[in-house]
């Protein structure tokens, strides 16, 4: 029972990250290596905004995280990514690596490298046989993740902006000729991706803690996206589930110490069988 719960919660953390990676890839063919850092810094911002408001209301920290995502998303796209059109593929990757390092240094300079926990709803909500418990935060993380994906589905499917988004992902040039504000759509992609990451970071900060080491969840999320297929949101969920299962089972059945390397081993296996990922499309392989 608790193992299933743990896997589901872990899947949620990774799925949110992987979804962001997929959105960014679909929108601008960018693979973001700074996603883990964005997630954790989002968590830190949430924490600090909570402190500033005295820890009484949830609205202030939530608003803090949202504002962070919007500013960060707009800034990364408008100041950096927009200028990289036509550059070799590695330039965008390395720029995101650079962003990741800068964010990490922000944790050091602003938050003094302290390990923080987000203590919202940590009291047990469900008691399971054997004494294990699930907190309100754990349940919230599942609910919020499901809500996020449902919202994303409705957005892409039924809103005008969502259609423009899909159009831009298909062919940015054509979309801009049809009057879509491509710059707006692509900044929006960054904002949504960072929002998802921040949510993931906040949930992670509730269950584990925030620190410069916890940015490694970004790599797990990236692996999940690659396993599922870089251009498929369904794949992101499936990939997250597979990575979470593999990690959990390694801890429990093989050797806990290996759990860090497992996502990569999994990735190598998946890529040698289906290089474009479980739900991805084959021609994407040559693009990146």
């Amino acid at each position, binding site marked *: 029972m608790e193992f299933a719960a743990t896997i589901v919660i872990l899947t949620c953390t990774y799925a949110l990250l992987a979804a962001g990676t997929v959105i960014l890839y679909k929108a601008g063919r960018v693979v973001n290596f700074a996603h883990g850092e964005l997630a954790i810094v989002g968590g830190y911002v949430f924490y600090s905004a909570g402190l500033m408001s005295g820890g009484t209301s949830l609205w202030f920290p939530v608003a803090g995280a949202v504002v962070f995502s919007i500013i960060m998303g707009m800034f990364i796209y408008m100041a950096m990514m927009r200028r990289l059109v036509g550059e070799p593929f590695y330039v965008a990757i390395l720029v995101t690596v650079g962003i990741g390092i800068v964010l990490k240094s922000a944790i050091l300079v602003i938050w003094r490298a302290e390990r923080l926990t987000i203590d919202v709803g*940590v009291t047990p909500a469900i008691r399971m046989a054997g004494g294990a418990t699930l*907190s309100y935060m754990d349940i919230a993380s599942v609910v919020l993740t499901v809500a996020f994906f449902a919202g994303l589905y409705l957005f892409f499917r039924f809103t005008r902006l969502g259609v423009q988004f899909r159009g831009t992902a298909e062919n940015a040039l054509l979309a801009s000729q049809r009057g879509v504000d491509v710059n707006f759509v692509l900044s929006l992609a960054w904002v949504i991706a960072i929002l998802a990451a921040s949510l993931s970071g906040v949930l992670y900060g509730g269950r584990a803690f925030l620190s410069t080491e916890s940015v490694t969840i970004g790599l797990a999320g990236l692996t999940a996206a690659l396993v599922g297929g870089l251009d498929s949101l369904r794949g992101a969920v499936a990939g997250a589930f597979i990575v979470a299962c593999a990690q959990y089972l390694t801890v429990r059945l093989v050797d806990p*110490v290996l759990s860090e390397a497992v996502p990569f081993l999994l990735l190598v296996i998946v890529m040698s069988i289906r290089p474009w990922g479980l739900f991805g499309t084959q021609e994407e392989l040559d693009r990146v």
Partner: protein
Amino acid sequence: MEKHVSRKLFAAAILAASALAAPAASAQNAYVIGYITDLSGPLADSYTPTWQGFELYMKALNDRGGINGKKVEVILDDDGLKADRAVANAKKQTERDNVVGIFGLSLSSTQAPVFTEMRKIGVPVVTTFSGILDALPPSKPFSYSTGVVFEVAGEAIGELTKNIKPNGKIVGMTFDSVGGRAALSHNKRMAESLGYTWDEVLFPVTTSDFTPFAQAVAEKKPDIVVGHYGSGQNLGVIPALRRSGYTGPYIVASYGVTEDTVRQAAVRAGNDENVYYVTRYATIYDNNPGIAEVSAAQKKYGTSKPFSSMHLTGWTLGKFAETALKACGWPCTREQLDKVIQTLKVDAPGLTGGPIEMSPQDHYGPTYWRLYVWNPKTTSMEPKSGWLKKAALKFPLQ
């Protein structure tokens, strides 16, 4: 545009280059010592308060008028828990700042290279935490430790566990580092010799979600769980263990874990009564004149980190440094300083269970350990045992 960029870069480069060549700013009329530690890396939580304790002592000392009429100037450098940076800092301090000795240092991985380099030049180095082979008998010249040695701590914890439960199954946890493994193996050795059964769970260094690991521990049905790691991990581990259904005793080994961390972890775990703490220095909850003195200094000068036993550790090291420099006289040379440290005896009543004693063969000396338990009602720690004296282990072990 292009030209602008290169001109600015050029200016920045010249500025940086001039900074590199900056001459030593040290006064000729003061004792200059170096302090290198991790103020920003993974263990900054532990080493920052230790440094602050040291600094408090030095501030108080200089306000008293210094040693032999001379002030003490401390050159502080951060190594970020990186060996190459620690070595470069040590070289910079010995050459540019002309320090007579180096104090502090972070984990063993940064100590070993600094010890090695400084031995070549002949600069005494005194560390607070995980002292290593170099300091333990047969000790190598110029290398000293006044702090926690993984192996000794492992043994002490094994022995003190008797005060919680006389027998049963102990599960040790650590992250997969060389030091963690060493601590575990000694804890295991001692526990098994006392009749406990032993099991262990290791996790990767970068782990921050401990739930799966905690479940693996809970499944082993332990009677006692020991966590061998620095400060922050406890914040994640204790709640994760409780979530996974383990409610038994949990021992925090004090590799730089502050009381405040224990408090936070215990609160997060649901105001637990079963959190224990084994430490080489006293805790701030002990009521004695030694602690009161440090506490007064902390109130006077202020520290950014909450007052903790790490401050006591740093304070004791400060006392060690003062005693050594005083004995060294003025002017104090590196050789002279090393010579006096070799037979130094420093008593820090109230802060340790007994004096720090160096001898030419043993640069670590006997250490004293104590078991505390967290009391959620009084929100403080209470001793659960007397001070346990551990003579230094001899290496290589048989």
